[in-house]
């Protein structure tokens, strides 16, 4: 068998189209982030995410935390491995919030949804986990089967900013 079992990200093949976007609405697929679902009481505040020792912890609900890491293994993170359940898209640039506001109903004003904020909500018609990393800097976690739809949706939403 010549071929080894290589990995394929849900948005492999989209890089060229993402690269055409201006810096003001830069999209980047971030494949292969390990993710695990950890259940039970959490000390995380609702609607937030925090950096912990070697992973990010995202509040998904009163008894559910998603741990994510680009380099740790699922076994190291603990919990149920859901790494391939979702894929990650980074959106940043001067118009990042403007773009999200074309399809996300929650209040994204930095005073309300600033760095460290997290929300499980709808973007377009896709369920997403939205993380704010900083001003006009977001990470979007989307179910892998919805990734192509969301990528198409984001590219279309960026039309106004292509200049």
């Amino acid at each position, binding site marked *: *068998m010549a*071929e*080894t*079992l*290589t*990995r*394929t*990200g*849900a948005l492999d*093949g989209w890089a060229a189209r993402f690269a055409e976007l201006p810096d003001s609405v830069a999209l980047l697929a971030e*494949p*292969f982030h390990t993710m695990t*679902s950890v*259940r039970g009481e959490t000390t995380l505040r609702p609607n937030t995410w925090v950096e912990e020792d070697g992973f990010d912890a995202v509040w998904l609900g009163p*008894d*559910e935390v998603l741990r994510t890491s680009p380099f740790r293994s699922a076994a190291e993170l603990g919990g*149920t*491995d*859901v*790494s*391939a*359940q*979702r894929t990650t898209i980074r959106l940043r640039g001067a118009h990042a919030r403007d773009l999200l*506001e*074309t*399809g*996300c*109903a929650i*209040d994204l*004003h930095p005073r*309300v949804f600033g760095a460290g904020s997290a929300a499980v909500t709808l973007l*377009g*018609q*896709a369920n997403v986990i939205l993380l704010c990393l900083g001003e006009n800097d977001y990470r979007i976690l989307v*179910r*892998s*089967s*919805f990734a*192509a*739809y*969301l990528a*198409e*949706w984001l590219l*279309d*939403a960026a*039309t*106004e*900013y*292509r*200049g």
Partner: protein
Amino acid sequence: MTRVDGYGRVDRTRTLRFTFDGVSYTGHPGDTLASALLAHGVRTIARSVKQDRPRGVTAVWSEDPTGLVQVEEPFPEPMLLATTIELVDGLVASSIGGRGRLAEVPDTARYDRRYAHCETLVVGAGPAGLLAARTAARRGDRVVLVDDRPAAGGSLTGTERICGRDALDFVADTLAELRAHPDVRILLRTTAFGHYDDGFVLALERRTDHLAPAPQGLSRQRVWRIRAGHVVVATGAHERPIVVADNDRPGIMLAASARDLLHRYGVLAGRRVVVFTSDDAAYDAAADLAGAGAEVTLLDPRPVRGDSRSGDYRRSRGLVLGTGAGPDGAISHVFTDQGELPCDLLLLSGGWNPTSHLFSHVRGALRYDAELGAFRPGEALAGVTVVGAANGTFDLAGCLAEGRGETPEPLPRTNLVLWRTDGDPARQYVDLQRDSTVADIARATGAGLRSVEHVKRYTTIGTAHDQGKTSGVLASAITAELLGVPIESLGTTTFRPPYTPIAFAALAGRERGQLFDPVRTTALHAWHVARGAVFEDVGQWKRARYYPLPGEAGGTEDMDTAVLRECAAVRRDVGILDGSTLGKIEVRGPDAGAFLDMIYTNLMSSLRPGRVRYGVMCGLDGMVIDDGTVLRLDDEGFLVYTTTGGAAPILDHMEEWLQTEWPHLRVTLTSVTEQWATFPVVGPRSRDVVGALAPHVDVSAAAFPFMTWQDTEVDGVPVRLARISFSGELAWEVSVDGWHAPALWRRLIALGEPYGITPYGTETMHVLRAEKGYPIIGQDTDGTVSPQDLGMSWAVSTKKVDFIGKRSFARAENRNPLRKQLVGLLPLDPTVKLPEGSQIIEQTAELPPPPVPMLGHVTSSYRSAALGRTFALALVKGGHARIGERLTVPVGGDLVPVEVTGSVLVDPEGTRRDG
């Protein structure tokens, strides 16, 4: 030309060319189609819908009931108001007779939506709204200020003074201050058209129509979805006419509209003007039009008073009773109680109706104000403030005060409420767009109608594009007069969104074409596409339905041919299916077994790690809602497979029971649908393929029995093998994480090549399972089918004390032997394929007269390669007892005889399962 030098804010240094009814005209930036036509003296721009009477411009903005036109260029659109179309170079429009014409070419423009959040939303950028926005911005609120016109200022004409300054300078300064706040958003050309719960307002922004050519990439229209902590309604008021006979002719206009035409566009709409009013505001129009060079006569039924605005016009006490027309149908003179007066423009003003739509949308009660002769907000509403003219405060000082949040002293009223003068009711138009008259209202009340809502529907008054902005209150008042009751006892018709007509394209936004509904794809989608798969929609999923091969004569196989080939290949050699869309839920915790025992009809807690069990889930009513296999992972873990469509609803169902009924159970549920890709490898040679994939696994029947699973590794990647069969064949379901799915699939295809591995789609999967009588939940069931009806009593535990649905099985109806039950059907002619959904009746050679008793219907129907014939599954009344009987299926005009059989048609002994 009726353009007057020194007036108006259009840019006369630039000329725009446009065409109306085939004639070329010019106008200027800042014009509307209506103002540009009136500037050329074009007074007739439409014809009425029922009576084909000539109509002109009656009001100067969206309240105009008459000036509907068809636009051809830049994009064909029917029934737009000439008064709201901003003039652009190259505009082509034409008059219409009440009805427009939809475009026959696709609309290539973009439409989108955007969300906005603010503490204060102000609707209307007139004096009251501007002050309200400024007050909120200075307080630190996030503010959204919307106004439907291209420029702020509302009804200000530029002749007023605010704080000692020119009013328009004040507007510009206030806008500049607002623009300097980072959290203030000003949206002009934006109509707030609906107000809903919890401060939610929809507004339509027209972004490109005033730009020619429209810039690339920008949406033409945008629906703003604004969530506001507080909504300030500063939407002004609509002037209302006084109804006189023949009041629908071109050249009859509201007084303030003529004044607006002069000050905004520099257009003097007439040279010989009669103003008929019972309200002081129209005196401003008389004075301003006279000042611009018109000869103006003002008639007022009130005694002459000294304090209204004076000017170079004649004024006398009197009434206009009717109008006459010249050869062009436009007004040429009026009949008054003192005789005939020639004129080319009649201005009517009977007072003002507060534009309280957005207050009314959220069920704010309107109260009739007898002094005003209008309905105005009559109660306080949490989260909503109505200020300025929308609140019935018509003086500038009062509007500014309310905008600042103060409550000004109301001024004494001097107006006289006058709805109509004496005249022929059949010629007194109330709704000019609907050609509805006082006589029509009289017909309605004469027919016994007593409610304004009924009168509205009987007469159609208020149902046109303008929704009765100028006619609604008139209709209430005249109805009250005819009934001899006070108007306040009738009320007015309910205002409902949208405030102005909104294009469906704008509401759809970007949710059209490929973004209409999310398309879900599996990790293998690219492979399916490359392989030439034909897809079918399964919910939001795209699933490969079949993979046609190149056919004879250059085409490709049709579905029947491809599916017969795929079916034969699976039962002869080996096939592979992308089953990744199946829902997967990890059920974990010390009580996971007990929980699943309640969820499934059969026992799950007794399943040992390494084993697989098929299970059925029912609702409380005992009807099947889902089915699938369950893998016991370890002591506290199960992996539940649901149907593709059941993935989300079954997770919700399980969470509902867990959280609301059994919160004491220590169980967690995690969706892993996309975490795992699952490929059934099916057929007699599947053992060879799976054995080649996992050489360290003993895949013999003895070492790897049916309904067991084992984990292995392929190139270090964890892979799960499970002996599950949905076809009766020897089969493994191979599962791997989604990242490695494409590579593992390619590996399986390569390893299977020596054995003739055939990728197959959902259609073949359906045929293979139907040959074995396995139902598809949602195809062979419809929410009224129990496990017993499916012949699956074996999957219903009699040992368990309880599970969801158990108690319902004991109800009399669930034990009725005449319930519809799943059976097989074989058409006596083996080439006839019954259409799914066909009704089934008793055996007959001739269709009896109706009503014909229906015994059931065909749920699945296919051609079988294994059987060499067609077959079907059906739900038939008392079907299990009818096996061996003959029935009839009417298909089109034919009566197809069929035989009822058991549902398992291929390998009923199950000899193929272990290879």
